[in-house]
Structure formats: C-alpha cells, structure tokens
C-alpha cells in the first residue's frame, strides 16, 4: 500500500478516482461513510446527509487535500491511533481520502530523500496544504532539543506551517505541550498555537485523540475550505464542547451515589462510578464517553475501569495527580424533571364546590323567606308567621294556676 501512496503523490485526484485505483471495495467505503456519520456528525457540512450513499456521493467528489505531517517531541501515539483499527482498514481509507505528502513514520524514504520530499511538497502545494503537527516544540535554549535535518523544530514549524493553509495540532503535545511540558519541563515544550498564534490552527488535544476527529476536520476543509467552529482553546466544538461526565455511561451510578472505593472492590467489579478514584471526567472536555476507541464499545479508559486522567486538558493532564478527586464545576442545564420551588398541591372537587354553592344559596334563600315571615312592626310580640295585629296590644300574661304579676302599661 505504501507504494501506491508515493505514486499518487504527484497528482491531486478525487477520492473516488483514488479508491477506484486502489481497489477499495464499494462496501468498505460505504461502511466507512456510515461510521463517519456517527463519529463526526457535528459542524460538518459534508455529513449533513441522510444516508451513507449520499455521504459517499459527496465524498467521492472531494479533491484529496495534500497533507504534510510533522513530528516533533512526540511518541507517535497519534499516528498509531490513526492506523490502529483494522476493521475496516481505517488507516488505508484515511490515506485514500487525503494525500499524505510527508510522514516520517509511514514514508518509505529517509535521510536526504525525505528532506527533499518535504521541500518539494512545501513548494508544490504552498498555501494549499494542511499541516498536521504531532508532538510539542521545544523552546528552551533556542530549541536545540529537537532538530529535524539539523534545523531546530521551531524553525521547521515556522517554515512549513507558515506556508500552510491551515494547521492541525494533533494530540495534547501539539495542542498545548503535553507530556514533555510536565514538571520540570526541561525543554520548554509548547504547543503550536503558542508559537504561531495568528495562524488558523485547530487543536485536537487528547492522548491520543480520536482519529475521526481529525478526519472530520480535514474533510470539512477539503469540501468547502472552512474549518469547523472552534472554542476558545481552538478545539472543534463538535468534539470538545461537552465533558466526559455529561455523557458518561456510568453517570447513573454517580447520580445514585455508587462509587468505587478501591480498585478491585465489589463496586469496581459492578462497574460503578470512578469519581472517588480520581476520575477527571467532570472537568475534561472530550468525546471519549460516546465514541470510545478502536471502534469497539466500552474500549476506553473508564469503560475498562480506569479513571479518566483528563488527557485533553492543559490544566489537568500530567499536572493533577491521577487519583486526586476533582471538584465538579460545570453544571449542565437541568432537565425539567426537577421539582419547582413551589409545587402545586391540593385538588378542588367541582362537585363539592357546586354543592357548597347550592347549599349556601339555599340557606340564604330560606333565610330570606323566613325573615319575611317575621313582623316588621316594632314591639310586635305575636306569633311569627301569623298576620300582624293592626296595632300593638297589651299582651296577655299567661294565666296559670296562681296569678302572675300583671305587667303595667
């Protein structure tokens, strides 16, 4: 496969042409397209399509962008992650989609051949290529700690990245310094954006990041020349706008207060939340909790029972101890299933209300009728309800056995 890579370096062809030439089956390609739709859906114009066939059709017309891949102070893990999956042969497919002009790990040549290839690629595609940077750049002592063909990394970066259309800093090292920048940072390792702040840079932190993130960025650029929406740390929002904690499969355990207290305990075996083991998920922005790795579900740190170390975050990875518990700052917008401060209480029975109304009305009516029966004449002692006398008479005093005192007028 490597041979055909170098062959194709001379011509910029579309993806379709390339795939035909390399003999990649239509089926594999469609599978790749459907994975693309799931893995990199946000902010990508190209995947604004409903079916893999549509994606395939759109993708097929994309002119393969030239890519120059630089390695500085790296472990090559980011390249490894790109090539790791084998079903489908993702690495193969990615390399069919882009035109990889220079890659120290993958290219056949070395030494002077490699230097020339770099110079040629930079020249020929000047202003058009995408420069992918892997690894941090040393800055201390004029950057002597990493040299490429005798030139310090800073100089190479300024040269190659300077002539690129866009820079993708893949991995935490290229994004903000990564492991080499950890205490005591003997080389003064920094990320690309620290050296070229004015360049269009997309940071893809992670150790390593998900390969589909890279693919999504590259494809968008290839399709319409734009980069995806970035946050304030230049990370594409479609992959980094949420933290692990929000989408973590173990979130229910967190909510219910079920925490692993010790590696290997019963909770650990049950798959309980690793927050108390120092999981940095709540403070780490990345898509690992949904996309996992190697395209196998649950193959990601938390899924296998290891707390997240926050490898994308500059303030956390390689700085905060792995098993130190973090404070949870970010609070997601709560769903509606929280009770309000004042919940309604009590129900009013319409039948009872009606009855009370009726009863009150009846009483009032009866009261009115009854009061009409009483005499409106003052000093009228007669039996109520009987006709009132014409004038007030002297009332009789009852005559019982023994006379009562006569009331005097």
């Amino acid at each position: 496969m490597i041979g055909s890579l170098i062959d194709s370096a001379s011509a910029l062809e579309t993806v379709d042409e390339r795939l035909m030439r390399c003999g990649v089956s239509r089926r594999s390609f469609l599978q790749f397209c459907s994975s693309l739709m799931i893995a990199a859906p946000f902010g990508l114009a190209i995947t604004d399509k409903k079916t893999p066939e549509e994606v395939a059709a759109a993708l097929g017309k994309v002119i393969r962008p030239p890519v120059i891949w630089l390695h500085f102070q790296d472990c090559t893990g980011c390249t490894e992650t790109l090539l790791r999956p084998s079903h489908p042969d993702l690495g193969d497919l990615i390399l069919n989609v882009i035109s990889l002009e220079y890659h120290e790990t993958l290219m056949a040549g070395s030494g002077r051949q490699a230097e020339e290839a770099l110079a040629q690629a930079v020249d020929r595609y000047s202003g058009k290529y995408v420069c992918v940077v892997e690894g941090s750049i040393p800055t201390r002592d004029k950057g002597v700690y990493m040299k490429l063909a005798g030139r310090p990394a800073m100089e190479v970066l300024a040269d190659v990245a300077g002539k690129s259309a866009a820079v993708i800093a893949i991995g935490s090292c290229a994004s903000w310094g990564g492991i080499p920048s950890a205490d005591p940072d003997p080389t003064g390792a920094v990320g690309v954006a620290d050296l070229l702040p004015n360049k269009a840079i997309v940071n893809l932190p992670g150790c390593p990041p998900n390969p589909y993130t890279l693919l999504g960025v590259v494809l968008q650029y290839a399709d319409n020349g734009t980069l995806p929406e970035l946050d304030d740390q230049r990370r594409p929002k479609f992959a980094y706008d949420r933290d692990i904690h929000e989408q973590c499969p173990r979130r229910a355990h967190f909510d219910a207060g079920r925490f692993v207290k010790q590696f290997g305990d019963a909770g650990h075996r049950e798959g309980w939340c690793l927050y108390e083991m120092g999981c940095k998920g709540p403070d780490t922005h990345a898509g690992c909790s949904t996309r996992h790795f190697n395209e196998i579900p649950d193959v990601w740190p938390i899924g296998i029972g290891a707390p997240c170390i926050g490898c994308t975050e500059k303030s956390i990875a390689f700085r905060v101890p792995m098993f130190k518990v973090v404070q949870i700052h970010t609070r997601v917008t709560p769903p509606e299933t929280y009770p309000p401060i004042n919940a309604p209480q009590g129900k009013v029975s319409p039948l009872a209300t009606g009855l009370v109304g009726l009863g009150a009305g009846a009483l009032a009516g009866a009261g009115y009728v009854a009061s009409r029966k009483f005499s409106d004449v003052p000093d009228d002692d007669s039996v109520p309800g009987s006709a009132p006398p014409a004038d007030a008479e002297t009332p009789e005093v009852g005559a019982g056995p023994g006379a009562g005192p006569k009331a005097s007028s």
Partner: protein
Amino acid sequence: MSLAINRRQLILGIVGAGGAAAGGLAKSAVAMEHPAHPVAPPDAVGMLYDNAICTGCRACMTACSEANGLPPETAAGMPLETALAAGLWDIPADLNAQTKNIIKLYREPDGAGFCFVKRQCMHCLDPACVTGCPFGALNKGEWGAVTWNSSLCIGCRYCEVACPFDVPKFQWDKWNPKIVKCEFCFDQRLKKNQEPACTDVCPTGAVIFGKRADLLSKAKQRIADARDKYFENRVYGEYEAGGTQVLYLSNVAFEKIGLPKLGSTSLGHYATKVTSVIYKWLSGPLLVGAILGAVIKRNWNRHEAERPEHEKQTGLRDQL
C-alpha cells in the same frame, strides 16, 4: 338535708384537683422555656448546605430513601407500574410522606440562570412543632434532633400547621398514619455515631454535617473568603425562627429558593408570650374562677332568696 360531704370539703376538693392538675402541668411547663433568642444546645449538630456547590445530582435523595427505608415515589399519584413503564422514576414534586429530603430547582425567570436547593427538616432551636404537639410526640432530643414518637402522636397535624417551613408530612393514604420528616437519620445512623446519609453521600460536599457552631463559623469563613458571592453575605438559619440547625448559603435570594422570610424570634416565643404568664400554675384560670365564683355565688344566693316568691307567683317549681 345535707350533702354527704359538706360544702367546704367540696371546695377544697375542687381546688385540690385544680392544684394537682396545675402541678402536673407545671413540671412540663417549667421544662420548656421560650426565650426570645434561643440558644443552641451544646451538643447541637447540624448541616450546612451551600447551593453554589450543589450540582443537583440528587445522590442525597437516593441515600436518604435507602437509609430510611422509604418507598420510591411516583409522579402525582401514578401507580408504580405505570410510572416505571413511562420512564418516570422517583420524582416527587415536594417533600411528602415518602420523601424526607428533596432537591428542588430554581430557574431565573429570564431562563438564564438556575440553582438548586435541598429541603428537609430544619431542626429549629426552638421548634414550633414541638411547642404545639399536645403530647410531645415531636421532641427535640439528643444533639438537638427533632424526632417523632409514634406512641404519643394522635395525628392532629398541628405540627403541619405550626411549622414555618412546611416540613412535617402526614400519611394521608395510610390507616396507621405517621408524621414523616427528616430526623437526621437519628435511629439509623446518629445513634451509631455515623453522620446522616445525605451528608455522607454528597459527592461535592455541598451539604456537610458537623457541630452547629463549627458549621456556622465555616459558613462565615466562606462568606468572608468570597465577599458578595452569597446572598446578603449571611447564613440562613443563624437566626431565622430563632435559629435552626440546618444552615444555608445561597447565591440567590433565599425567598427565591423557597426559604421563607422569617423574624429572629421563635414561633414558640410568640405564641406563648401571654399564655405562659396567664397559665403559669393555672393562676389565671384559678383567679378568674375565684372572682366569677364569688360573683355568681352572690347572685345565686339572691336568686335562691327570690325563689320562694317566684314559685308562689307561678305555682310551679323554679326551672334551672
């Protein structure tokens, strides 16, 4: 004709009975004082809830239900099977007979901000429910926890009326109804030297347990460290209703999260200001009784003196 006991013995008997009742009352009357500003008992424990830290995870609700053996709550009277089928699980609308502790959500009217509040019994220093309960079923006991005793409660629900925080809940749907409210996990955990379930499980430390005095100073320290972060730079519950053992720090107005605006004297003080004087040793009733008795006796004697005259006039026995 004379009574088997004479009048003097009768009077002494009644006064004696009144005195015995007064004595029986005096024991409980003296035990309960209602100073205008109650003092926390020395072993008073408490909880400090800070809604700037609370993330609304509701682990405290689950832990409370588990520790207290409470059944899950379904939405507004829905049968359990229906609720589970509909995917609605354990979302009480408020504290109720199955929920001793609840997290509620406050949303700003413009929809911009929100915060949570944890509600449960406040364990007041001078609880109104304890003042009102006729047989002392609600009692402020060890560590200042207010607990309910099922063998003394008659189910009159005066505690529900008295509580300014609307905390005690009644089991309307049970024939043997209890009053349900947070008791600091008194029987289940406090007595075993463990802290209550909610404070134990809280992952962020939004609600913590400790001695009230310590929590109060910790809260004031937080206020001092972050001036103007907390509403009115004060702790709710320091003086409200005479002081409570559950303290609140909030970054929005207390009234917005449902904590009522209350004065600094306890309801017990307000309610017993006058009656504690009038009814001390039953002195008021006895005094009024003595005065009324004297007047009535005099009028009665006159009535009795006039009776023969009346009966002669009417020819009938006098009717009482």
